[in-house]
């Protein structure tokens, strides 16, 4: 009797051990599945820079979205700021600097995850990426954003408002907000002209923006080039 009880107890413990072991091996598998499904969102974007990265991602550990603890913390902080809509949160300057390549990649994906109508959210991401332009790839992504089709309405970027439906006085701030991420990118380019290593790439990006960007963005690019010429940057 006693022996059979001991056997039963042993069997229960063994079974519990097997379940725990199975669960532990399964958990990372599930999380990697989540990563893959996360990438499928990015694959659906119109971004060549992000899409190319995702396709190469299988071989590149940096691009497997394996964020370090530090990067994950920064990403969580960004989500917090996005939710609070408080652009004067000092942590933006104190903590959201020195972005790693993995985090930059994550932010590029996040840009396309946000709805196109979330102009402020998208603009914040471009601001963070734009103040750390270091490589041609960094410039290429912003250049892609600058040449996006213009958002036609803050209600729905794909639908132009009906003629006469806009009160020009009351909606004056909206004219900037519609192209806000693009204007933030242009400003980042203008600042990056001060970096001799990137100057020619950035100048080319500004010239592309002037040629191919929406009218308001093209004007901002033209003005940025004019200011740089006036200040003897070129």
């Amino acid at each position, binding site marked *: 009797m006693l022996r059979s009880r001991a056997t039963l107890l042993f069997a229960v413990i063994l079974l519990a051990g097997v379940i725990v072991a199975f669960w532990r091996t399964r958990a990372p598998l599930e999380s990697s599945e989540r990563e893959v499904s996360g990438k499928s969102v990015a694959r659906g974007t119109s971004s060549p820079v992000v899409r190319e990265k995702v396709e190469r991602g299988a071989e590149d550990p940096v691009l497997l979205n394996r964020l370090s603890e530090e990067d994950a913390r920064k990403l969580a902080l960004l989500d917090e700021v996005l939710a*609070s*809509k*408080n*652009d*004067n*949160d*000092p942590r*933006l*300057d104190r903590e959201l600097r020195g972005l790693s390549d993995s985090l930059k990649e994550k932010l590029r994906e996040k840009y396309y995850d946000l709805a196109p*109508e*979330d*102009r*402020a*959210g998208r*603009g*914040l991401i471009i*601001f963070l990426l734009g*103040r750390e332009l270091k490589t041609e790839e960094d410039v290429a992504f912003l250049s892609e954003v600058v040449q996006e089709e*213009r958002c036609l*309405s*803050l*209600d729905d970027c794909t639908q*132009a*408002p009906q*003629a006469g*439906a*806009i*009160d*020009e*006085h*009351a*909606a*004056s*701030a*909206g*004219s*900037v*907000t*519609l*192209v*806000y991420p693009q*204007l*933030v990118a242009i*400003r980042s380019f203008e600042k990056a002209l001060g970096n001799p290593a990137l100057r020619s790439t950035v100048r080319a990006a500004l010239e592309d923006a002037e040629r191919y960007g929406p*009218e*308001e963005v093209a*004007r901002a690019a*033209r003005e940025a080039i004019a200011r740089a010429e006036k200040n003897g940057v070129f």
Partner: protein
Amino acid sequence: MSRRIGFFLSAWACGLMAAIDADALTFDRNVPKETQEQLTSDLASLEGIYGATASALHTTVFGEVDGSVYSNWFRSRVLRVGYDSSSVGGAVAYVSPFSDPSRIVLTANYTRFSHPQIARLMIIFHEARHTERQNSYWPHSRCPRLFVDEAGREIKSIWTGLPLAGESACDSQIGGAYASTVIMLGNISLYCETCTEKVRADAELYARDQLKRVINREAAKQIKEDLHVAL
């Protein structure tokens, strides 16, 4: 004895807090909680602003570059906040100067549209300027028939692609609602020491755009000189 003193001090502090709260904005009953919270949060963020320097025009219109100065300026003009559930026309806020000048009305777009924070603040300070009875509510001017930028290109509405010429969406006075927010944002951009880099950059971006609405050349020139042609 010391307990009693402590009790009275606490009671006095509570009374003081209540008095301060009485100065808080009064919201109409129909203002959604989300809208109230967003406005309160935006104004609270503004109160953290400080800069040791202010331009001459800023000193005339607002005073120092200081959150409490902005807050007092706003609260001395706007006593009540109403709500309009309509989102037609792209309006975010408005004031009806002739019927209820001390009441600002926020529309559903205040929280629905994704404007950066400085743009929301710019809009409500613009509207607050329209509450000033002693200045005839700072009426706008019609944008000129030939409304062009410095390069001679016609300025168009980004919404409709149509020329802004003839729209009542410009200022010819240096203290007007567009002009005064250019001065405010220009100073935040130049002198705010407690602002994030983003707030300063956004302030410059929106000020630069709003300056285009100041059509009196002399007024625009004065503003540019005041801001050291930062825009």
